[in-house]
């Protein structure tokens, strides 16, 4: 009896309230998205909103069960849960059912389950458990390898299911690791990679090389090289360039400007290294690593982009970068229609059930991945910002709750939940307004679908359960 009372007292009711609110709003918007005159009852089980209501009921039931379970259970069973999940992810590759080109669903009678959704929860548990161990040192090689393994294994399995979108979610654990002491440089490198990735696709590789070169000189200045020396460096690259160019012309060989520049830079490396040695600039090695790494990175990006990514994935990325834009078909069409739906909502929206773009199916997947369009169209700028605010408040609240944990396991897990929710929010909403590539991942608590709703519910309520025990120390 005392435990019950303390649960009710210690449960973070604010979070529960926002959760229920979001789930309710999601359901209302699903009703609006697929509304038709023939099935007006919001409880009609033959329709998606009717089904969603059932799933919401089941989700509440799940939440209640989770709250009853002892908090210790989750940390104790973190690894077994993770392993079972891996088995399921492998099983789905073999026994799964293919939907929209992705083999990621189990069919159980009329219900379909997507293990990838639950894998996030299991991975979150496992990584929290691992990092919270006493012997974990973030910059120890072994620790890094094992945590990477924990994160990458499900991601790779999910990629094998041809569901790259869900796999990308695991990249967000970088933020969790950062919170737990991972060097900021990793985060910076991650950011740099993203920038390089984009400019590699946007620009001709010669310009990419020039940009890297320019950055390298800026870094050299930052680590203490003198301006005169940098000027000499720039000049010698120039002279080298013209020398090589002259020789190439003389020999009458067809060599592109890109390679000429690369050769001249390579020729300059020897005097450059000598200069560093003389000046005792140890940090210069980082600059070289940066330059060579970036170069290598851009190469692999082009290779990856041309040879590994599938056509539709390339198109989606190109779409966001504005390289290719065909508003009549494919990803371009989706984004164009989605923007039209949201944009036409105006300040106050067209009103409940009055959205035309979503209801008349101009927007694809209007009740799942593109549910935000219904919000934007029917509730306008006001409605969409309110929804964004609720989601943000929930996530920030989770950060706050995570920070008040005594046990590192709970804290790390809390960060994991917040980061996963954030990633879904950023990619899903970003894609509907044309700021992120079209990656089919759901908007937490909003999108239609039992698997994702249950997965997010479990994710969230396990943390709430842990938070209710925040004064205990879990290992």
């Amino acid at each position: 009896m005392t435990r019950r009372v303390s649960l009710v007292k210690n449960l973070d009711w604010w979070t529960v309230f926002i959760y229920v609110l979001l789930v309710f709003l999601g359901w209302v918007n699903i009703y609006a998205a697929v509304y038709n005159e023939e099935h007006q009852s919001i409880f009609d089980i033959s329709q998606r909103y009717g089904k969603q209501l059932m799933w919401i009921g089941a989700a509440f039931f799940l939440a209640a069960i989770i709250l009853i379970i002892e908090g210790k259970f989750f940390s104790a069973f973190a690894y077994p849960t993770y392993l079972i999940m891996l088995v399921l992810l492998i099983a789905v590759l073999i026994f799964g059912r293919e939907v929209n080109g992705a083999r990621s669903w189990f069919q159980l009678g009329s219900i379909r389950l997507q293990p990838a959704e639950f894998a996030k929860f299991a991975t979150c548990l496992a990584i929290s458990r691992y990092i919270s161990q006493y012997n974990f040192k973030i910059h120890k090689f072994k620790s890094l390898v094992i945590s990477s393994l924990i994160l990458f294994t499900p991601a790779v399995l999910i990629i094998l299911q041809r569901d790259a979108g869900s796999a990308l979610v695991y990249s967000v654990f970088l933020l969790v690791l950062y919170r737990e002491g991972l060097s900021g440089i990793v985060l910076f490198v991650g950011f740099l990679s993203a920038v390089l990735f984009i400019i590699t696709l946007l620009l001709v590789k010669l310009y990419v090389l020039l940009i890297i070169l320019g950055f390298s000189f800026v870094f050299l200045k930052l680590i203490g090289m003198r301006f005169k020396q940098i000027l000499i460096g720039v000049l010698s690259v120039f002279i080298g360039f013209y020398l090589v160019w002259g020789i190439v012309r003389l020999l009458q060989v067809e060599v592109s400007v890109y390679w000429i520049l690369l050769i001249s830079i390579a020729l300059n490396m020897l005097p450059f290294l000598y200069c560093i040695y003389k000046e005792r600039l140890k940090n210069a090695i980082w600059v070289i690593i940066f330059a060579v790494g970036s170069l290598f990175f851009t190469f692999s990006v082009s290779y990856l982009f041309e040879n590994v990514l599938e056509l539709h994935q390339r198109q989606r990325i190109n779409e966001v970068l504005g390289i290719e834009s065909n508003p009549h078909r494919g990803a371009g069409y989706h984004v164009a229609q989605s923007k039209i739906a949201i944009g036409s909502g105006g300040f106050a929206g067209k009103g409940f059930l009055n959205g035309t773009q979503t209801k008349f199916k101009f927007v694809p997947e209007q009740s799942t991945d593109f549910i935000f369009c219904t919000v934007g169209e029917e509730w306008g700028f006001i409605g969409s910002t309110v929804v964004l605010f609720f989601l943000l408040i929930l996530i920030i609240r989770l950060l706050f709750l995570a920070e008040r944990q005594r046990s590192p396991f709970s804290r790390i897990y809390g960060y994991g939940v917040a980061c996963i929710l954030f990633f879904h929010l950023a990619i899903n909403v970003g894609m509907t307004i044309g700021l992120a590539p079209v990656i089919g991942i759901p908007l937490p608590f909003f999108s239609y679908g039992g698997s994702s709703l249950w997965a997010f519910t479990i994710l969230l309520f396990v943390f709430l359960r842990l938070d209710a025990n925040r004064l205990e120390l879990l290992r």
Partner: protein
Amino acid sequence: MNNFSNRKYIIGGIFILVVFIFIIRLFNLQIIDDTYKQSAENNSQRQVTQYPARGLIYDRNGKLLVYNQAAYDLMLIPRQLSAFDTVDFCNLLGIEKPQLVKGIKKAKRYSYRKASIFLKQLSSERYAVLQEKLYKFPGFFVQTRTLRKYPLKSAAHALGYLREVTNQEIKSDSYFRQGDYIGKSGIERTYEKDLRGKKGVKIFWVDVYNRIKGSYKDGKADKKAVSGKNLKTSLDIDLQQYGELLMQNKKGGIVAIEPQTGEILAKISSPGYDPEMFVGRAMSKNYQMMVQNDSLKPLFDRTMLALYPPGSIFKLVNGLIALQENVISPSTRFECQNGYHAGNFTMRCHAHASPLDLRHAVQQSCNAYFANVFRYVLESPKFGSVQDGYIAWRNHVMSFGFGRKLGIDLQNEKSGSIPTNEYYQKKYRKKWRALNVISVAIGQGELQITPMQMANMVAVIANRGYYYIPHIVKSVGDGEAIDEKYLKKHNTSIDSAKFASIIDGMEMVITGGEGSTGTLAAIKDIRVCGKTGTVQNSAEADHSVFVAFAPRENPKIAIVVYVENGVWGSRYGAPISGLMIEKYLNGEIAENKKWLEKRMLEADLINQTKSTSTNSAN
């Protein structure tokens, strides 16, 4: 590890930053940028033009001449196209795939967003089958239009025809869209704006498959199409059809006018054509055929476009002018010795008693009499010179409506020509004499007059001095008045008192006993007044002309019949005029004239032109 707890600010900051960027983006999309609202409407609204029914056309007795029939055009909006079963589509429409590909290309060239016609005028059977399957072919929809239908297949020239609008017409009149029809000739053209009505529009919601999901704002934004106004023409369609029948196998024209009002009762140009040939898809083919391959020029409206010399009927005008100028009196007599002789000049005449007074000169159409009359006018001392005399004479002529467009409510009216003094000055080097232009006295020479103008001349005589501009539409819509200019009386320069003797002569043409030239136009119990004309035609047989009005008192009909290569006015012109008048006034032809009707109906001047012309070289 709590030494890293400050990093919560960085992580939280990232979250807040991203959401903040999203809100800015949303602000931009939803509030600042208006194009998305426009796109949304383009996406999901379809404006379906409601075509008004074109006004119907009736004759003066309320008989229907033109009505509408539904036709279905298959329209295409290229932007809404998506992959569909082309084999099924082609089978439904009965077309080949290359045609489909070509059609889509053409539509895309015209506009990506605007609808253009893919296939014109589907049959209602095809339409019925297609309509059920149309949802499978996004981008296509059916536009209902109306086509003209002619129950009596008559009066083609007067009614005119419709044709699809050209790009130029679309540019100059914002009412039109591609695929619309416009009146191109006849009444359809003159009264286009009355007949076409006002287009309406219905706005529907459509989904991504272009299926209609309901009406926009419950139809409050819709506009109903307003039907075109009906027209009541002045034509008597029975008379019109009878005239067409009489003129079969003959070239020429008939115009009948109600003198008191100027209303055109019948207007026949022969050979004519079936108005249905110019409806719908067959039009361009038939048009080509008629313009290029038919030497008889069926499209040529002889009543208003053909410029004929009037021949002897013009003697009436000359007689009236002489009376008005007081250079002769009705009892003035002139000699005729088988013609008019002046020095070396001779104008031949047929054999008749001599001398004759004005009435008998009209009755027997004496050339010499009117040559004298014409010289009297031009050489009258009160005009100082022949030239001044001619100018005075021409002013009288012009007051009859000759030499200029009358202003009929039909397009393509020719003005004809009455030569000016300047023209003759140039031709004859300043000083010319009356003898130079003497052929004008008998309606030959440079005179160019349309049958419509001749009919108007008869109306003037019937009215004893005035006319109303001939017109073909009696009323527009629900008894709306027609253009004021058709209600205005136009007086000629001849006093009404001067007409009596001429009209006496005209009655004698029909019933004057010996020497009468137009006896075949006689009708029992009706006083018909007429005048024959035989127009010299150098190359082929002469043209037969007859003008008449009846009854003499309170005339109801004025008519001109012009039969090309009909030789004498008495041979075809007079009988046809008589039959027409009888038909109009009595409604039927008396038994004792059936033989004449039969002869006229059977006469064939087109297929036997050669034999007739050799017989009657005059």
